[in-house]
């Protein structure tokens, strides 16, 4: 059975939903960040699959979009981990359940 567009989209959708479940359910802020990275990866996979399989006058546009997503993901990871380190230094925890300073 040759893999077609549906197969790659299925893997991308399952990966995205796993990332969503991880980022919604993890207690540790670094775990939440790992879920977000998984979701970004799933989106990249979907874009590349569309760019490879669909009829388009300009198929390289999907690759361009993925390059920008990679850039933003790298920036996001750097800032998020810096935030985690800063929060840990101030509060001695990165447990997102206990970071409720803004709750009245």
């Amino acid at each position, binding site marked *: 059975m*040759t*893999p077609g567009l549906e197969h790659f989209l299925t893997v991308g959708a399952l990966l995205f939903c796993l990332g969503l479940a991880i980022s919604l359910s993890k207690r540790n802020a670094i775990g939440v960040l790992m879920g977000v990275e998984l979701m970004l990866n799933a989106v990249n996979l979907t874009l590349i699959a569309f760019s490879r399989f669909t009829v388009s006058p300009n198929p390289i546009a999907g690759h361009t979009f993925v390059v920008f997503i990679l850039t933003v993901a790298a920036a996001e990871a*750097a800032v998020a981990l810096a935030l985690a380190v800063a929060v840990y230094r101030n509060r001695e925890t990165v447990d997102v359940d206990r970071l409720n300073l803004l709750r009245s």
Partner: protein
Amino acid sequence: MMDGFGPSLAFWVLAAITLVAAGGVMVSRNLLHAVLFLILTFVGVAGFFVLLSADFIAMAQVIIYVGAIAVLVLFAVLLTPRSSRDNSETRWAAPGILLAVCLAAIFLFVVHDTAWRTVDAAPANLSAASLGRALLSTWVVPFEIASVLLTAALVGAIMLTRSPEEEAEDALA
């Protein structure tokens, strides 16, 4: 291009590795094991990119995700004490997982119910050269904005992680 036994085998092996490793991120109790499973997922996705004839993106995936982001996450885990390495769920885990399952059902329904207009042969100009040409002609403004974003993130990350002692030293100087 996708015909033959090799690409099919590669697809199923990569799908198994990627999804099992992503499940490992979900179920592993130790945050360090979760990071190692995450690296395996990134490698699997890079394999998918090779299979979809996106060579440059696959290289960028290996260098940026496996090389940079994974090492960054690993450092963040190793720099926090052993007590904060558990990877358990909050009490809101069940609604979150339920939402993800519902979303997965919707996605799978849409993917399999749509009549996609696909081509079997790979498009001709998916090379790194044409990607570079597109980035520096059509998309040159977003490209420059991305470089500004990277600089801002770099400076912001350094500012965020400075300790109070370092800030006091800078105030004296």
